[in-house]
């Protein structure tokens, strides 16, 4: 029996009904719950439920969110999990509900979940009973739902067996910590099962406890739950009868309803309160501050004492001091360094910096390009440790944007690593600190419009082709607004959409929005811990071999104060490294990009001409339009250029004023003279995040830490209350400094519009380094640059065929795929670029590698020889033939295709078999040039020799379109007709319905501006790959675009023949 007399039981005697829900699933039961942890907490508070236990299936995914929400809602959060126990031989797995009673119990639950997930496929958990017995301390167990071991045995009339099992659990947990769980959902057989369960509890001497096994909040959400179950089991509703609950009773019930349901067993309700009282609230044991990090490298002589904390600090100071004089031979910023180190020491982050320093140095020693990005570049310490390439003193950066005691959240250091070698660094971290102490943060892949439509359509029994057509027709991302998708409304007529299946679909899809579908791996966030990590947060294996992930995503980790290190893959770093290596191979001189002066006029001339395809951060359509007006001539210009095309500056309407002032068409002015210092470098407008801090400091007297809090509040969508309090503080502060309230109000509104959706200057500067390096490579080593760029596709803004066309326009000879010479990726061959085998669709990386390996023994003698040595099948060789990879043999492609059957058969036999002759074979002709182009495009997405618009060149000629090369010679406002291939379509939310297209013809790219009316009229044409645009030429300085008045789709006729 449960001992003690809880206070609220006395309250209950006054007449009220109370009940605590001890078994509830949220959306974080992954496809077995429909309510978010927050919604559960709020609903429980509404129903006056004093305590709620979140018991997601084999997981604590939502623990942090739930705890926070429950605290805010004023109810007691209890954590737990519905564990899946491995069934003994021949038996099915069973459920058991575990609740955390103490901090020890929490650590044990984390460990149990980790053990259950270990060695299992993704999404599967099975806990051995032996493991359960070994880590049962501090946990309360309930016998579980109908899938529990005891209820199932009783349902199957194995009462004595059930009795033995119950006694076993009572021994493992102790009789006071094991309860028989009673549920009533108006399911057939409930009464009988309940009678058996209560009888069993009496016989064993256990207490009973009522639970709701909540899967949704409202009966109507049952449909969503059914759909989620079907998605989980990869089946359709029609076939899922046994998998679905028979009714919609699995809701969160009020205490009154529960009292009515269990009026015959009132003790079951009273016990819920007793159990709830015994369970410690989650905020008592959840991590609430930075975790104990593993010890960073402390070797070397740096004069420290024995205390490890001091040791780390001394080593950090020693490393920084050593680098300070190297980096700053004159006027070293000693004061700044001392200030930063004192903040770092005060926050106990010295060890954290050492760990990051160690990772960066190990990578650099291994020749892996890496550099810090984001706010870390504001730190002098990061610069001195080589974590960031940006000198914060020279760039006048604000350290508090990165770290301040007021902020109360851990810092976040992001490191960009060459994408192709990032895994080496990750594995180094695992090995250096051990897999018990290191894991990657997870992400929850949530339902968006397309995924929701695909899944729901499949579950409702739509044919796969129709489901796909539906998903593809969507032109929205948010599943909630699926009914408003114009694309879908156009693709399907109203009558069709009025059909019942469609109505079901349109009703259900919005309800799936934001529900986690499955787990993914965060881009690069790694969590380290000195204590075993699996006692802090459950871990589980990721699909990718060798990776372990935490059950918390980055937001939860941050909320729990757990520090992570982001090891992000950046393809541009790989591209730059490859380009440098290629140049070294060609010239025997390795360019030292780190020592480039960053003021080469040739490089800036190229950028100013808008030749930016492939150049990091400035190749996008918007940047390419801006750059001829902006005319960057220095590194600082690049930093601003990169930062301009961001939602913050765009929404705050700061881009045009900046450009006008830069062009000298508008006088530089400041909202208040006090802001001159903060905004001088950007001609009086706010462009960088740091400027928000400076403005708050200079105009309203904010401390750097306070200013950072203001910036963070501004960047959060739902921080209305916080912003309001900051506004008061801002206006008061400004008044104290003698600033007029109206001016202060206007400035604050500007800050609010700016929102913080912009780069910190430090981040932009770190990116600008790569922008300059990539531009320099493009300017002076185009062959190496484009070859390297193609090696790392997909990357950047444009598809690979645009990169190939641009390379040709830059005078680079591009050669097609060839089985005799092509490597897996693009290579440089006699001052020409040879496309790699990887571009051939259907060949795959393994297939391409086997061709390269087979060729290392000598050239291929025949198709039979090729088949025999590569061991490739028809599915891989067919696309190779069509891609023209055998064209150097001088045999028609169809002839090879015909002979492939015999070649494959002959390759199966021993080598001495005679090679079949082509006697008696039909003779096939060579494809026409158009046919060749067609098949190459169909199988590689590009053509080495010709531009893709050749497919419609006759039509373009017939319609007298103006080539893009002739546009600069035409005057502003002139009516023109241009045509080509659409290579990008954008309709940014900030553009008020205006769409932007990038059209490519053989001469280059043309920017097309499409106003909403024309966009609506031309929706169908805009989905066509080739179009003709009639419109008006617009010139803004040197930037040229065409304002579309009519868009006509061009059909590609015929097929290869």
């Amino acid at each position, binding site marked *: 029996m449960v001992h003690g007399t809880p206070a609220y039981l006395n309250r209950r005697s006054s007449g009220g009904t109370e009940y605590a829900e001890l078994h509830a699933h949220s959306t974080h039961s992954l496809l077995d719950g429909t309510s978010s942890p927050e919604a559960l907490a709020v609903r429980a508070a509404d129903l006056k439920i004093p305590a709620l236990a979140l018991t997601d299936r084999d997981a604590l995914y939502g623990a942090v969110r739930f705890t926070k929400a429950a605290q805010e809602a004023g109810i007691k959060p209890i954590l737990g999990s519905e564990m899946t126990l491995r069934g003994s031989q*021949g*038996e*099915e797995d069973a459920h058991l509900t575990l609740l955390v009673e103490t901090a020890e119990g929490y650590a044990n639950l984390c460990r149990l979940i980790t053990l259950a997930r270990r060695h299992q496929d993704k999404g599967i958990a099975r806990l051995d009973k032996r493991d359960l017995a070994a880590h049962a301390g501090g946990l309360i167990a309930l016998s579980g739902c109908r899938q529990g071991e005891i209820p199932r045995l009783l349902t199957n009339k194995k009462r004595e067996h059930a009795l033995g099992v119950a006694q076993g659990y009572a021994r493992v947990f102790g009789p006071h910590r094991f309860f028989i769980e009673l549920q009533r959902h*108006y*399911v*057939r*057989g*409930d*009464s*009988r099962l309940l009678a058996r369960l209560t009888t069993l509890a009496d016989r064993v001497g256990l207490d009973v406890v009522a639970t709701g096994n909540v899967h949704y909040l409202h*009966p109507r959400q*049952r*449909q969503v739950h*059914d759909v989620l179950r079907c998605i989980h089991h990869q089946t359709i*509703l*029609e*076939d899922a*009868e*046994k998998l*679905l609950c*028979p*009714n*919609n*009773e699995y809701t969160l019930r009020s205490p009154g309803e529960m009292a009515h349901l269990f009026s015959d067993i009132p003790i079951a309700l009273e016990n819920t309160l007793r159990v709830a009282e015994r369970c410690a609230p989650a905020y008592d044991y959840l991590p609430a501050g930075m975790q104990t990090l593993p010890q960073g490298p402390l070797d070397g002589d740096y004069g420290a004492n024995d205390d490890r904390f001091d040791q780390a600090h001394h080593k950090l100071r020693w490393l920084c001091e050593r680098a300070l004089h190297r980096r700053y031979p004159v006027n070293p910023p000693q004061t700044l360094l001392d200030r930063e180190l004192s903040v770092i020491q005060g926050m106990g982050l010295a060890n954290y910096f050492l760990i990051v320093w160690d990772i960066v140095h190990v990578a650099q020693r291994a020749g892996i390009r890496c550099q810090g990005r984001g706010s870390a570049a504001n730190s002098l310490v990061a610069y001195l440790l080589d974590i960031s390439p940006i000198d914060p003193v020279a760039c006048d950066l604000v350290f508090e944007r990165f770290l301040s005691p007021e902020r109360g959240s851990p810092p976040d250091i992001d490191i960009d690593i060459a994408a192709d070698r990032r895994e080496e660094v990750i594995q180094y971290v695992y090995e250096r600190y051990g897999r018990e102490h290191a894991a990657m943060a997870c992400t929850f892949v949530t339902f968006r419009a397309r995924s929701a439509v695909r899944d729901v359509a499949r579950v*409702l*029994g*739509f*044919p796969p*082709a*129709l489901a796909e057509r539906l998903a593809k027709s969507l032109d929205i991302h948010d599943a909630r607004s699926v009914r408003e998708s114009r694309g879908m409304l156009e693709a399907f*007529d109203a*009558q*069709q*959409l*009025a*059909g*019942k*299946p*469609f109505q*079901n679909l349109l009703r259900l899809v919005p309800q799936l929005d934001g529900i986690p579908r499955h787990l993914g791996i965060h881009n690069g966030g790694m969590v380290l811990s000195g204590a075993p990590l699996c006692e802090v947060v459950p871990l589980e294996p990721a699909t990718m071999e060798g990776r372990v992930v935490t059950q918390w995503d980055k937001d939860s980790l941050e909320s729990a104060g757990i520090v992570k290190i982001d090891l992000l893959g950046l393809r541009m770093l790989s591209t730059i490294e490859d380009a440098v290596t290629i140049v070294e191979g060609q010239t025997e001189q390795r360019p030292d990009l780190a020592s480039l002066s960053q003021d080469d006029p040739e490089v800036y001339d190229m950028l100013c001409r808008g030749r930016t395809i492939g150049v990091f951060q400035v190749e996008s359509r918007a940047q390419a339009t801006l750059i001829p007006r902006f005319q960057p001539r220095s590194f600082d210009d690049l930093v601003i250029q990169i930062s301009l095309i961001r939602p913050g500056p765009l929404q705050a309407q700061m881009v045009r004023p900046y450009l006008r002032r830069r062009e000298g068409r508008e006088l530089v002015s400041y909202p208040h003279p006090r802001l001159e210092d903060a905004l001088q470098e950007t001609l009086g407008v706010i462009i960088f995040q740091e400027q928000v801090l400076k403005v708050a400091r200079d105009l309203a007297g904010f401390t750097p830490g306070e200013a950072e809090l203001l910036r963070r509040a501004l960047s959060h969508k739902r921080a209305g209350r916080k912003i309001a309090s900051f506004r008061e503080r801002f206006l008061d502060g400004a008044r104290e400094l003698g600033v007029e309230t109206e001016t202060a109000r206007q400035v604050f509104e500007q800050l609010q519009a700016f929102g913080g959706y912009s780069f910190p200057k430090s981040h932009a500067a770190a990116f600008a380094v790569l922008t300059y390096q990539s531009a320099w490579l493009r300017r002076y080593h185009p062959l190496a640059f484009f070859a390297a760029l193609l090696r790392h596709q997909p990357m950047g803004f444009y598809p690979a065929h645009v990169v190939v066309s641009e390379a040709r326009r830059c005078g680079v000879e591009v050669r097609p795929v060839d089985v005799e010479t092509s490597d897996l990726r693009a290579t440089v061959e006699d001052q020409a670029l040879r496309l790699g085998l990887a571009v051939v669709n259907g060949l795959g990386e393994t297939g391409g590698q086997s061709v390269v390996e087979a060729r290392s023994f000598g050239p291929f003698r025949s198709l039979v020889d090729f088949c025999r040595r590569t061991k490739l099948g028809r599915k891989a060789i*067919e696309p190779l033939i*069509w891609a023209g990879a055998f064209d150097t043999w001088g045999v028609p492609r*169809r002839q090879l*295709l*015909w002979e492939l*059957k*015999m070649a494959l058969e002959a390759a199966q036999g021993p080598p001495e078999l005679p090679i079949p002759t082509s006697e*008696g*074979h*039909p003779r*096939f002709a060579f494809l026409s040039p158009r046919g060749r182009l067609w098949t190459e495009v169909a199988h590689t997405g590009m053509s080495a020799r010709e531009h893709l618009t050749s497919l419609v060149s006759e039509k373009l000629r017939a319609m007298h379109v103006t080539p893009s090369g002739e546009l600069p010679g035409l005057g502003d406002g002139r009516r023109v007709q241009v045509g080509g291939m659409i290579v990008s379509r954008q309709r940014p939310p900030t553009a008020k319905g205006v769409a932007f297209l990038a059209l490519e013809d053989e001469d280059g790219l043309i920017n097309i501006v499409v106003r909403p009316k024309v966009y609506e009229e031309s929706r169908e044409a805009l989905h066509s790959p080739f179009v003709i645009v009639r419109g008006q030429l617009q010139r803004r300085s040197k930037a040229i675009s065409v304002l579309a008045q009519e868009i006509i789709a061009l059909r590609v006729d015929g097929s*290869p*023949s």
Partner: protein
Amino acid sequence: MWVVCLFIPHLPVRVEWQRDPTLVNAPVIIGGRRWDQGAVLDCCPQAITAGVEPGMRISQAEALCPAARFLPADEEAYNALHRRLIEGARRFTPTVENDELGLVYADISGLKRRFDHNADAARRMIKEIVNDAALDVQIGIASGKFVAHQAARAAKPGEACVVSIGEEKAFLSSLDISTLPLDPEMERRLHLLGVRTLGAFAKLPRLAVLRQFGSSAGIPYDLACGTDDQPLQADAPPLRLTQSHSFVDPVSHRRPLLAHVNRMANDLAKEIVRRGYQAEGLLLEIEGIQSDKGIVARQGTGHVAEHFSCAVGKPVKPPSSSADRLSRLGARMLGSLTIGGPVNKLSLILYPLQSFHLGAAQLTLFDSTALSPLASRATFGHTLRETLRRLRDRFGELSILIASLVVAPAPRPILVTTDCRGIPRSIVWHERIREVQSIHEHWRERRLWWRRPIKRDYFRLEIEGRSRQTPGQMKVVFHDVQADRWYMERRHI
């Protein structure tokens, strides 16, 4: 050989159009009403354009083409029209092959004697058949079935297309390769090779084609060349086997008749086993001399003897060749007959006979491991579901639907009085109000919300007995929440 092909494309749709001309302008899907569980039997070209295919689930078709008119299949009417097509062809020749609905072949090689030219034969045939069927039949005449079918497809409704001997190849050459019975992989490869028409295919060397695509490519290749040797599989009257025995002295007692029936059944069973047949029906015919007193009357009473005959038939379900079953059935049939006098002839007929393999298909439904004692229920369930899926894939939805025809007895509407919470207090049963003595269980079912929602509140309750002396009865009743009606559940729950 000279073959005529009679073709009514989308025969069921045509029948429905004829019944209701307003359907012509709307997409029509035949097979069931909207939301029925069945499969699409046929659909009009408009529905085909929307992606509907025969064999598809009705619900899928509904999703694809919600604007369509969904009609239940009137197979009797479609079959009747198809039979008329067959009968029309039979007027000219007994060699008629019955293909799918709306497609019939007839061998008219002998018609040359009756008509000067084949076109005349065609025209006459059209006139007669079209007048009879009141439908536009497309007719193709050629030297083989394939060419005749293609000719019929090419013909306009109500007209004939005649392909003369020697012109087959030229006629076929422009047709798309998809008209040939090709497996999808072969069709894909021919497309890649640029072979898009039958003419291009026929130009390839035969040996090279066989080597490239395997020996099974020979048939489509020959068809593309216009060579079609496949004979017509003419419909034959159903097989029947008869054994008779004439009595020299008419028999008046049932026992010797029974002995003869048994013997004949045994002999017939042996015979059909030897031939590899099974019987689907058994017919017993008796001839005798009418007597006023029936079978016990004796001859030689001076009356003028009148002859009588009687017969009885029974289906053999499932078809069988078992001597025991046939004997037992024969004996039962004999017992059921009222015999008017002494019997002088007894005949036992097995009809129609079908080969053992007809209507049966052998499938490996379960592998042996799935049925092992160690296999869990989940494994078994999975195997069963997989098997059903394969059956559906192979034989279409209808193969599963046949199984679902065996349905539980439908619930019976009843009257119930409830308390304010909706709990039954009394029910009307056998025209008497019975008080509910106790409610043993209450459960709720909310299912099939995506199709036809079922919302039922079930009660397992005990009602008072017929009289005070008789014990109470346990019943399961449910409240249909949507219709607000009460029913007595008659399934075993």
